[in-house]
């Protein structure tokens, strides 16, 4: 298809608007994070670099510890979600048993409850397990958000894999776990990368559970820590610090997306089963 110059300009303008709308808030956060004091409240679109806010974020509260917490929680949630998700998906996609459809619908309906609805019940559960104010409690709570869609997406992908492939592996002497490990996992790579990434983002940004189930500053994850950053007086919101903290925690997400985006695309094109 060939485009006239007018169409090209129109297309470029449309792209520009979309990119601007998507990027501008983040851009403003970045330049704000470099500004100081009353400078913050002037409308300006250029940065005057100063790292004072970044240093303040780490010195005024245990922000390094908060980042570590977030990393631990997010990676653990991804690992457990994918581990449970793949094995559950194998059963739901490959093993015929009574009530399979009902179970799938139940799993999906779990994710439809608003977080607030399960908050008190989850609180009781976590307290009775002795996980209050611990990272393990947060990991458990976050699984409630990530497992349903992980299981669903992986089940759908697993259903697409040809049955004869599984049969061939059984003929070769594989156990069900070996079939998953040696045959399904490599083929599910793109799906795992995609769902794992989504689970990571959910766990990384999760706020309500992290706020409710932690007590001390040392156990907080990044979103809660940012929300609770306080200024010198109760009447001051330290925007500079908040913006600096936000930029710091967004960077790993963007890096992860860029890394896995390539793998997802590569996997999708190379994964032709029948060829």
């Amino acid at each position, binding site marked *: 298809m060939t485009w006239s110059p007018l169409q090209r300009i129109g297309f470029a303008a449309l792209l520009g608007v979309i990119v601007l709308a998507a990027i501008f808030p983040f851009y403003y956060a970045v330049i704000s994070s470099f500004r100081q004091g009353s400078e913050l409240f002037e409308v300006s679109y250029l940065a005057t670099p100063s790292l004072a806010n970044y240093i303040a974020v780490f010195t005024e509260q245990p922000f390094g510890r908060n980042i570590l917490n977030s990393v631990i929680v997010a990676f653990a949630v991804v690992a457990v979600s994918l581990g449970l998700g793949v094995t559950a998906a194998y059963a739901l996609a490959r093993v015929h048993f009574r009530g399979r459809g009902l179970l799938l619908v139940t799993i999906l309906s779990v994710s439809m409850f608003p977080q607030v609805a399960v908050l008190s019940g989850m609180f009781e559960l976590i307290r009775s397990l002795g996980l209050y104010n611990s990272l393990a409690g947060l990991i458990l709570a976050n699984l409630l958000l990530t497992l349903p869609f992980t299981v669903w997406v992986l089940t759908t992908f697993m259903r697409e894999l*040809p049955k*004869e*492939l599984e*049969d*061939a*592996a*059984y*003929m*070769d*002497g*594989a156990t069900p776990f*070996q079939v998953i490990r*040696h*045959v399904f996992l*490599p*083929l599910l790579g793109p799906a795992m990368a995609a769902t794992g990434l989504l689970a990571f983002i959910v766990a990384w940004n999760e706020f309500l559970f992290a706020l409710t189930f932690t007590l001390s500053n040392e156990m907080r994850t990044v979103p809660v820590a940012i929300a609770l950053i306080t200024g010198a007086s109760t009447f001051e919101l330290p925007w500079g610090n908040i913006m600096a903290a936000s930029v710091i925690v967004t960077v790993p997400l963007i890096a992860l997306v860029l890394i896995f985006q390539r793998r997802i695309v590569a996997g999708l094109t*190379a*994964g*032709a*089963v*029948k*060829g």
Partner: protein
Amino acid sequence: MSGIRLQGIKKRFGRVETIHGIDLEIGEGEFVVFVGPSGCGKSTLLRLIAGLDAVTEGVLEIGGRKVNDTAPAERGVAMVFQSYALYPHMTVYENMAFGLKLAKAEKARIDVKVREAARVLELDTLLDRKPAQLSGGQRQRVAIGRAITRDPGVFLFDEPLSNLDAGLRGQMRGEIARLHARLGATMVYVTHDQTEAMTLADRIVVLRDGRVEQVGTPLELYHRPANRFVAGFIGSPPMNFLSADALDLATEGTVEIGVRPEDLREVGSGQFKGEITLVEELGEAHLIHLETPAGPIVAKLPGAATHARGSEVHLDAARERLHRFDAEGNAIFSASAS
């Protein structure tokens, strides 16, 4: 090496019974082909022998050992699938080595086995390729190679050639026949293609609706089909069935007369006469379709057609080439023919 014995094998899926009690003995080193229309249970039967589905009732023996509850890999069988089912993320070498690796064989032994299979199947130069980079025929050979490396006593083939184009199919058919001669293993082969059945089989098992219709050598089935179904299934173009009453060939109990298109000859005056409705040239022979009082007839005559559409011809066949069927469709064998 091992034979297979099926005794009263039944298979039910839920409440639906698809295999209704099959007794069959397959000798060591024999090449047996299961044929039948789709849905006749031939693939199910193969999966029962493979161990991919469990036998509901009856006894299944491989190599004199009851294997009803034995895992597929421990039955000493290997299977080649219709879609090849190669592991897409593994190279040809890894595909063929997978079974041995799972069995925890030594690296050196795996290497010897894989390279030997690759040499037999002329895959030597393709060992580092992924299945997606291979042609259909090459993939099929890898699938066979994967079966060979495990040294099974029994090979199971589930319509292995049906995804190939006609030319390649003939070539692979020859390769499978040579492979059987070379390995001497028992082979069970499922197909709906009767040419494959006729050319490959030591014995053919004709199945219909989960029952065995007839077991015999290809020529037995061709010359002495036990019933109307087998008679119509083996042979191409299929046998003509004519109402016995309209012909003066009727003997007691005979309801239908069967005659193969290639057994008919043109004569000055004969049993079957009618008007030609269609002429099909095949090159070395030609087919004429006739409308006769006893029913439509297709005849395969040598050479190019000598008659045009609309002309009337007389056909006849040797007496011993006629097949007689009773009201139930069972063949009636006269004393002289047997």
